[in-house]
């Protein structure tokens, strides 16, 4: 279990007294400060809070207090997770200067565990994008090659972990925003079952799709973070009591499990990505798993369903940014209406505007039935298709992204072309399922490729164990550590 777990390794170092939490935090802070100019993973560093927590952890360690696994572990939060007293912007000009007066539930939990927050991580504006480049702070770069993007929308969160600038990050995944950058950056990213982790304090993009989850260097680390944050929260009506701890399931034999591979997921996939996937499936066969190819024709509806429903919800969720109560307000205006119009025109970036317009359109009277209602019905069809699939297999395997990390400025060229690259990740969000991306090798451009595993609702223990077994068997062939950042 402990072999690849950075969190357990750091925990041991702290508990043995080999390094103090303050020293460890300082190491990460100075690395972050140095590397951030190059990688742009953080939009804000929070050294004061970090060192304060570290000092407290050191006191507790000195007093031989029992500490939870995440105590003293340096980490980041995506900048759409509300932090009381710390600016939270969603990397949008419209929220510049907005300082929440309450904590997101996940941050509250991590605070109670004494996790050390290094700073807020870069992201696509309001989590809308696949490259992190719609951020008003500019995009995060890929630590494996800074001419490539870190991915998105949780680009900064992935970049920080892959670049050894944080032991773990919390990101959010609405259509692939945790798994895709994890895949691009060669790390592990878990999108939990919808309802497993509280959304309270996560600034909404698309409420029925959004889910917070971990980005880590290993499956065990994702399990540890998942176990900490997957708690029922009365503040979130869609949160569930069904989530089960995952870490204790790691290591279980997977002989005889059935891994389903829907052939629709393999259409239009770049050849080098496909062959990385096929090698991964071979590893599973060698572990005694049975690979079952099958067809899920309704997968083809995923992209339109996702973009219609997510944009519809976004158009409503983003209506509140009017410059009246918080955030950015335009300088010159004659009256209230002009103030709201100019604030929104100047405050939102092009991608966000595109999705607000699309969402407003599909909900408008006269178009509702043709778009929103139809998409809602097809969402039901897709949910049913996955239920049927899980009657025949334990886990579904697919690529995370049809390609490796985009070159810089690639996504700005064609919005629809970019949307198409979400094809493998959105079905999971549509159906509210858990999905994980684990590194499974490299493309012909020597950039990391991700293997995506999908489970039935609340099957995280089995899903993470399936990923864990692969990692144990193939880690040295498929994972490449980046040289920069904190070396331990």
């Amino acid at each position, binding site marked *: 279990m402990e072999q690849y777990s950075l969190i357990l390794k750091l925990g041991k170092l702290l508990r043995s007294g080999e390094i103090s939490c303050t020293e460890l935090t300082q190491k990460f802070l100075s690395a972050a400060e140095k590397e951030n100019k190059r990688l742009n993973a953080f939009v804000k560093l929070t050294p004061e809070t970090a060192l304060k927590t570290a000092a407290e952890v050191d006191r507790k360690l000195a007093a031989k207090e029992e500490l939870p696994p995440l105590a003293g572990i340096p980490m980041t939060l995506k900048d759409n997770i509300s932090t009381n007293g710390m600016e939270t912007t969603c990397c949008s000009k419209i929220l510049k200067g907005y300082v929440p007066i309450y904590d997101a539930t996940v941050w509250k939990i991590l605070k109670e565990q004494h996790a050390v927050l290094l700073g807020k991580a870069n992201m696509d504006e309001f989590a809308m994008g696949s490259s992190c480049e719609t951020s008003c702070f500019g995009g995060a770069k890929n630590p494996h090659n800074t001419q490539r993007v870190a991915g998105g929308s949780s680009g900064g969160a992935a970049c920080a972990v892959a670049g050894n600038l944080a032991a773990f990050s919390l990101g959010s995944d609405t259509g692939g925003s945790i798994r895709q950058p994890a895949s691009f950056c060669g790390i592990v990213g878990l999108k939990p079952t919808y309802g497993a982790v509280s959304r309270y304090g996560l600034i*909404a993009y698309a409420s029925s799709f959004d889910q917070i989850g971990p980005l880590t260097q290993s499956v065990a680390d994702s399990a540890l973070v998942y176990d900490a944050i997957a708690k029922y929260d009365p503040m979130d009506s869609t949160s569930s009591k069904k989530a089960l701890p995952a870490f204790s399931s790691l290591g279980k034999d997977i002989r005889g499990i059935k891994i389903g591979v829907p052939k629709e997921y393999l259409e239009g996939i770049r050849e080098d990505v496909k062959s990385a996937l096929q090698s991964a499936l071979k590893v599973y066969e060698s572990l005694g798993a049975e690979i079952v190819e099958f067809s899920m024709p309704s997968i083809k509806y995923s992209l339109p369903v996702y973009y219609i429903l997510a944009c519809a*919800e976004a*158009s*409503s969720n983003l*209506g*509140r940014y*009017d410059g009246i109560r918080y955030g950015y307000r335009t300088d010159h205006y004659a009256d209230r209406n002009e103030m709201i119009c100019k604030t929104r025109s100047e405050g939102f970036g092009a991608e966000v505007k595109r999705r607000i317009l699309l969402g407003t359109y599909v909900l408008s009277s006269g178009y509702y039935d043709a778009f929103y209602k139809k998409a809602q019905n097809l969402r039901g069809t897709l949910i049913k298709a996955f239920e049927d699939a899980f009657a025949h297999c334990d886990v579904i395997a697919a690529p995370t992204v049809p390609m490796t990390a985009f070159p810089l400025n690639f996504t700005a060229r064609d919005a629809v072309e970019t949307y198409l690259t979400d094809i493998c990740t959105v079905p999971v969000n549509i159906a509210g399922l858990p999905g994980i991306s684990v590194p499974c090798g490299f493309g012909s451009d020597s950039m990391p490729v991700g293997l995506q595993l999908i489970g039935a609702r609340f099957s995280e223990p089995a899903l993470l164990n399936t990923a864990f077994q692969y990692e144990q068997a193939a880690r040295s062939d498929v994972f490449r550590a980046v040289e920069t950042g904190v070396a331990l």
Partner: protein
Amino acid sequence: MNYELVCGLETHVELSTKTKIFCSCSTKFGGEPNTHCCPICIGLPGTLPKLNKAVVEYAVMAGLATNCKISPVSKMDRKNYVYPDLSKAYQISQYDMPLCRNGWVELSSGRRIRLNRIHIEEDAGKLVHDRGNTFVDYNRGGVPLIEIVTEPDLRSIAEVQEYVEKLQMILRYIGVSDCKMQEGSLRCDVNVSVRPAGQEPFGTRAEIKNMNSFAHMAKAIEYEYDRQVDLLMSGEKVVQETRRYDESSGCTEGMRGKEDADDYRYFREPDLVTILVSDEMRETIQKRMPEDPQKRIQRFLSEYQLPEADARLLIEHRRIADYFEAAAKGTKNPRTAANCILGQIFARLGTEAEKEQFNVTVSPENLHALILLLDTGKIRMNLVKSTLEKMLDSGKPASDFLSEKDLAGISADDLKAICEKAISDNERAAADYRAGKEKALKAILGSVMKATRGRANPQETEKLLADIIRR
């Protein structure tokens, strides 16, 4: 040609739950601006609504009290529109699956005004204009509302008024709202159309928004009726639109044209789960509901033998009816209890508001104790009145004002002695009685009552006197 008035009402009623519909802030009216607020009800980014169960229960009570079917499954929707008093730029409401459907409210004529639906939603904050500046106060934002929608069943201003009064009475009675029009806890949108008398199809309607007093509502409907009739008589058409009533001119005026008609882009609120009202929950609420006021009147007539007019007065406010029952239950003189309330107690409550509050110094238990003294013959009616006055003045129980002697009654031996003395003092009257003059006994009785200061029971005493004289 004669035109018939056709009205339908959409009534917004603030529920009197302690906390708001989606957070735990107070719903109290007034308060310094933005002091009954939290991250949720000011819609800060990342916050989520959490449905207050009491709101569902109150709305179900309102539905049951107005004969509605309660939906076992309903949901919340977002109604999107931009206005500074709406902090999220959408109102969480119910669109196509309201909590209650198909009810009715009966008017005194026996006509039933059908209710199409009752749904729950959140109120918005309000704009405050001050010296050229506009401020927003979100205290009211998130206060729970029910919207009660009638079918176009109302045919006169009097019916509209009676319907609203009836609704107020019912909702106050079951305790779900104080229904104060002047404080805005009950507001009406009135849909008005006209049609030639005898014609089946309805005319085109205009909706007059936000009526907050009976007087304005009556004037607005009257104006709107005349306006529409004039239009039709002169061969023009009524346009379907939203209109505003201008209090100073007494006129209604169009608020916006058709081209910029609202499109609220309703869709299901993804942050809330389906609302389920099980049979069990509905029955529990039903059991907890106070008795239907109409049925209660009937029961007051039969159980307490009250005159109907008295029963109606007592029922009007639930607190008074409850007070009466607590005082009258188990006594032989429920009518005395009613008279005490309607006479002496009401005399001290000047306004309707005071009656509704019914803050009375005498507890129903103390009034009950006073009536019991009457029941057991320990005191007489004249003493009830004067004692109650003293109780009302001081808030103290009856026992504080009645002397030992007042309450002691008269022992049989004492009464016999007093009677014997009275007979010997009135020899002539006794002789007359012996001679067959029944009335002569009254004179002797009078002197006994005088001697006992009214404490003796006249019937018993008369019998005793007759016995002694005959012996």
